[in-house]
């Protein structure tokens, strides 16, 4: 059995604790990076991380990107989405296909 975790600013991730997710509050990039590393070591399969934190720890995200597990997924915080999660999806499309064919009509 694998666990699901959430990393991010205290106010945001506290809510996930009530749902039974493993929660690690992190206020700085270093804390977030360490939290993600520890969770990955502990065998978490899915780590949700707030977008603002995800933007700060690009290196750590990159490191786990090519591994099948864990899946590190940016989620919007309480202030709403800044679009960086969608940007990742777009980057994938561009990488795989060579051009952004899916979102062209919107962007």
């Amino acid at each position, binding site marked *: 059995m694998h666990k699901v975790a959430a990393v991010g600013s205290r106010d945001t991730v*506290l809510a*996930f604790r009530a749902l*039974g997710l493993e929660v690690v509050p992190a206020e700085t990039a270093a804390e977030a990076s360490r939290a993600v590393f520890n969770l990955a070591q502990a065998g978490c399969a899915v780590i949700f991380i707030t977008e603002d934190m995800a933007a700060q720890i690009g290196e750590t995200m990159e490191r786990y990107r090519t591994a099948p597990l864990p899946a590190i997924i940016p989620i919007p915080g309480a202030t*709403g989405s800044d679009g960086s999660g969608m940007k990742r999806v777009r980057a994938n499309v561009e990488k795989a296909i060579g051009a952004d064919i899916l979102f062209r009509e919107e962007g």
Partner: protein
Amino acid sequence: MALMNVNPTRMEMSRLKERLKTAVRGHKLLKDKRDEMMRRFVVLVRENARLRAEVEKALSAALADFSLCSGIMEPEMLEEAVLYPVRTVNIAVGQANIMSVNVPKISVDEESLGEIVLSYGLVQTSSQLDGAIAGLANVLPQMLRLAEIEKTCNLLADEIEKTRRRVNALEYVMIPDLNETIRFIAMKLDENERGALTRLMKVKDMIAARDQA
């Protein structure tokens, strides 16, 4: 295109022809692999985009509710309320294979996603907290599905890029190089043969001329 650095011999030529055959076959296979991965990827990534839009919308709303509660309630109370959850979310992670890319397959333990039981008493907490947590609980299955699909898309995108580079390298470098080298060797061998023939004829003429004299 660059000529390979090889000796122009028959041996070398048959070796290169063998390599060319392998390269052409590999190129065809990889191209098929790339096309099929592309097809699957487009389907997945569309779903990914749709799911992400949904999750982001729902999650922003639920988290906004929650932060509203944290404004109303004492921080200590709030923390205490959610400190000991009555359940833990457990997921089973299997593996699926999409065109020889290993992708995670997440299946959620139904039990851990069942009816949400509040972990706190109703006396010290605001009623908005109940709503916020219920909202979050509703998004959670979608979030997990998003996690699975997004990871799959990531891995597929990587693999497609790799495969595309291989296909292009074979198509535009390896195969032309091999063709050119084979052609070069064939020419060289023909030229040698012609040279040997003329030499023989010349010698024969010279012998005939000497015999007559």
